[in-house]
């Protein structure tokens, strides 16, 4: 009975695969085994169909007229904001700004908030674990405005050195911008705790949820953050769509980022006034179909349930880590403490360049990533520079992990 209840809430990745047309694809004659989910996720039939349906039946520009297609498009696009808002527990859909991706989201904040609000001597705190997209925009501001970037380090286990946090915060700290889940190590950082500490010195808090939101249930009010950003393409949505959640007062006070149509209220050559939220930050014709598709992706995720997804991935992760630990020639980065983690494992095989590992896995239809994972400072810190990475999602299975590890063994043998 207990088992029955348990299995009723656990998802069946074999059934879920049926929702994802890409798995009909064969790669090098083999069924596709897709373990590159931290780079981007595959898309369910419902998301693909929503795009198709939009272009076949509703395609039009939004906000720009009083004809039926335009009205339908506007409603569908606004509705997508609502779905994302509910998904992360935001009070109102106007707190959601659609962007191209997490990268644009952070840049929007760097320009719209940072460029106009920061001054020489102000400080920003990031961590060494950040993705490049949460490092380089702040360097731009550092060079333009003379601010200082402080960096919270990691220990040898791959956890943030939280003991150093208070010492890095002061009333000069205007923003703490932290990666929620590492795209290299999988580590989930205690963002709620970090937010509380940041609030003590009055800093704003930005959470980069690109790698967490596809896998964990998120509530912005529970975290207490001021901004949260993510990418649609990593959470079953289309390419070209991402978003920012921001608190109302902050978004209202912020300067716009891009300027043009739709974000204005009134334009004269002398002076322009801004439109209301969120349009103030969505200049020009947006990626309408991207937004609508993201809304459908959120529907899909909620239908399956984030807890189920997390539990399934946890099971895969534990399974894979145990299996990989059997071979001492596989070096795994991170995963050394009991901190919470998403299904990402970066590893190297002694004496074999990760490109060769990935390339030879690909010949068996297994897609993994190899490279610096857009996190060079972290990689350098952990002396890894380059690594192979497997990352799981709801459609992955233990059989796929088995096949991957079997192939790793063959590769190792070939190089001996």
């Amino acid at each position, binding site marked *: 009975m207990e088992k029955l209840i348990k299995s009723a809430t656990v998802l069946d990745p074999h059934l879920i695969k049926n929702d994802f047309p890409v798995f009909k694809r064969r790669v090098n004659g083999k069924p596709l085994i897709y373990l590159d989910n931290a780079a981007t996720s595959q898309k369910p039939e419902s998301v693909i169909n929503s795009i198709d349906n939009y272009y076949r039946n509703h395609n039009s520009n939004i906000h720009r007229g009083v004809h039926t297609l335009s009205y339908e498009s506007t409603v569908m696009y606004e509705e997508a904001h609502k779905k994302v808002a509910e998904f992360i527990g935001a009070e109102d859909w106007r707190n959601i700004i659609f962007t191209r991706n997490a990268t644009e989201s952070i840049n929007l904040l760097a320009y719209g908030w940072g460029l106009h609000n920061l001054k020489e001597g102000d400080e920003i705190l990031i961590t060494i674990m950040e993705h490049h997209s949460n490092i380089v925009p702040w360097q731009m501001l550092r060079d333009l405005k003379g601010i200082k970037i402080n960096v919270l380090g990691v220990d040898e286990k791959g956890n943030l050195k939280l003991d150093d946090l208070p010492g890095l915060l002061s009333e000069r700290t205007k923003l703490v911008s932290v990666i929620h889940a590492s795209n290299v190590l999988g580590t989930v950082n205690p963002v709620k705790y970090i937010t509380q500490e940041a609030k003590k010195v009055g800093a704003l808090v930005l959470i980069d949820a690109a790698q967490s939101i596809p896998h964990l249930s998120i509530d912005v009010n529970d975290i207490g953050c001021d901004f949260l950003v993510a990418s649609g393409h990593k959470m079953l949505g289309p390419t070209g769509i991402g978003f920012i959640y921001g608190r109302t007062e902050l978004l209202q006070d912020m300067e716009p980022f891009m300027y043009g149509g739709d974000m204005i209220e009134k334009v004269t050559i002398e002076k322009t006034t801004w439109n209301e939220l969120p349009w103030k930050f969505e200049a020009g014709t947006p990626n309408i179909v991207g937004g609508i598709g993201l809304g459908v992706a959120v529907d899909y995720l909620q239908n399956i349930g984030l807890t189920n997804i997390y539990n399934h991935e946890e099971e895969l992760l534990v399974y894979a880590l145990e299996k990989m630990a059997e071979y001492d020639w596989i070096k795994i980065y991170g995963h050394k403490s009991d901190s919470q983690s998403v299904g990402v494992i970066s590893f190297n095989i002694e004496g*074999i*360049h990760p*490109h*060769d590992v990935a*390339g030879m896995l*690909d*010949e068996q239809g297994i897609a993994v990533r190899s*490279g*610096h994972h857009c996190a060079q400072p972290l990689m350098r810190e952990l002396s890894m*520079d*380059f690594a192979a990475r497997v990352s799981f999602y709801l459609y992955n299975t233990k059989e796929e992990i088995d096949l991957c590890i079997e192939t790793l063994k063959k590769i190792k043998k*070939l*190089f001996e």
Partner: protein
Amino acid sequence: MESDNLEFILDHFKNPRNYGTIEDADFSYEEGIPSCGDVIRLDLRIKNNKLDDIKFSGTGCAISQASVSILTESVEGMEVSKVLSFTDNDMLEALGGQVSPIRFKCALLGLTVLKKALIEKKSAP
């Protein structure tokens, strides 16, 4: 990749030919692909417009390192002008014609570096 072709490449990776440096090299040249971490350094000696000696060192994936090894064998003793007209296709054929397009960048790194070296040398005073 067919397995005998793979063995041919892995053999060059494990036992690189012309690996090392030339003490009295006419010139040396080093370049890489930052996004891959591959680096290749070439030492060259030219006599009578011929590539009299060529040695390489470097780090990187098996394809890139084996490719330079194979390349050095193919071009040693060749006239400089001939080396310059050695095409990407020639290189891929020298590798057995089995490298996946995905790895062309790795496979052609050595040839690119060699040509850059020779062109730079030419235009040098």
